[in-house]
């Protein structure tokens, strides 16, 4: 399986000379299974360049949304395959307690927020309320679980040939924990992360920043490192960078995090354009 990062920024697209290396586009990751199955994780602004890269190929696209915060769906209207009548697009995402995925997504894909309505898109669109537990997408198996973040939010583990990739871009496992990390069975996100080959995880804040944003649904990098250690992952990719963090600042944060001692996994600064073989 292969993964490409098309958007690594959290909360708000943040273009500018100070964010060129890590990237300013919001959450979007392309996953290719060994059988060619295409999964797109989240539809942040990074999905626009992915759409251009796909060209006219890919008769079927599978989009897995972790949740419906704006930074994870904003790229939808700018994903060219949705405007091609011959393409089958499956979208999975969490329903709320009272509305299904279609109703929730229509709130954005309709005027006045967007001129084109979801139902008017020419591609063959199928929307699925994401099942909690597991389901198959092409030749890939997906595990999904609710994780700690405001509103229904899921984390995904994608399995292919005995390998797995876990994607939890927005996650606050330390919320309300009197100590963290603690027992794995009482840690949000553990079930979809333990032993994973590549964990792409929220690292929005520094510890002082986290103290000011408890309950906002994100992790300090120290929390994520502790979480990755607990889950015994092989590689950790930092993700959902705060819009205020410049490239220089992110370099500094990562260097500091890596210098705290030998880590039992490879720590990789998540930058737009990076590719991983899993």
């Amino acid at each position, binding site marked *: 399986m292969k993964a490409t990062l098309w958007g690594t920024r959290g909360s708000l697209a943040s273009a500018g000379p100070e964010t060129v290396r890590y990237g300013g586009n919001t959450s979007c990751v392309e996953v290719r299974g060994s059988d060619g199955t295409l999964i797109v994780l989240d539809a942040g602004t990074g999905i626009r360049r992915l759409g251009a890269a796909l060209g006219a190929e890919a008769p079927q696209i599978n989009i897995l949304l972790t949740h419906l915060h704006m930074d994870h769906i904003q790229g939808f209207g700018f994903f060219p395959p949705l405007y091609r009548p011959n393409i089958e697009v499956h979208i999975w995402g969490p329903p709320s307690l009272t509305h299904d995925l279609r109703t929730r997504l229509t709130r954005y894909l309709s005027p006045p927020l967007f001129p084109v309505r979801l139902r008017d898109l020419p591609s063959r669109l199928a929307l699925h309320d994401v099942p909690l537990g597991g389901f198959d997408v092409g030749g890939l198996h997906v595990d999904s679980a609710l994780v700690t973040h405001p509103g229904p939010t899921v984390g995904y583990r994608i399995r292919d040939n005995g390998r797995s990739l876990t994607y939890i871009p927005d996650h606050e496992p330390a919320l309300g924990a009197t100590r963290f990390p603690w027992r794995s069975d*009482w840690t949000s996100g553990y079930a979809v992360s333990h032993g994973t080959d590549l964990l792409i995880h929220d690292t929005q804040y520094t510890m002082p920043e986290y103290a000011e944003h408890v309950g906002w649904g994100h992790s300090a990098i120290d929390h994520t490192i502790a979480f990755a250690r607990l889950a015994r992952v092989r590689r950790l990719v930092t993700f959902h960078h705060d819009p205020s963090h410049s490239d220089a600042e992110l370099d500094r944060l990562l260097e500091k995090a890596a210098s705290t001692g030998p880590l039992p996994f490879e720590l990789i600064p998540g930058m737009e354009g990076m590719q991983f073989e899993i």
Partner: protein
Amino acid sequence: MLQQEVEVILMRQLASYLAMPIFVVDPSGNLLFYNEPAEALLGRPFDEAGEMPMAEWAIAFSPSDEEDRPLPPEALPLVNALRRRRPAHRTIRITGLDGISRRIETMAFPLVGQGGRLLGVAAIFWDLDSR
């Protein structure tokens, strides 16, 4: 079990901050957690008592009615809330593991998660003797 449901994790975290005694069980009735204020009523720190099956906790605290007649498990609000999937309430007497008998109000409610999954029951106790 690899990991508790996230709603149950959050319930425990909330309970660990609240000053009311709270007792949480899983869908099979196994005790998952009680908080520090509940420790005072039940007479033993949770860390010592640990997780226990319903058959054990339902008699460990010798529940009885207000006239001291022993109550079977099915008469307990917690068990009722679990079996009938609706809130249940009752004034009962319990004897803590410290041997002290207390009159408490119990209000139990099912924890129903996304998609209607029954995740367990949470009960709030109210110590009537000390209020």
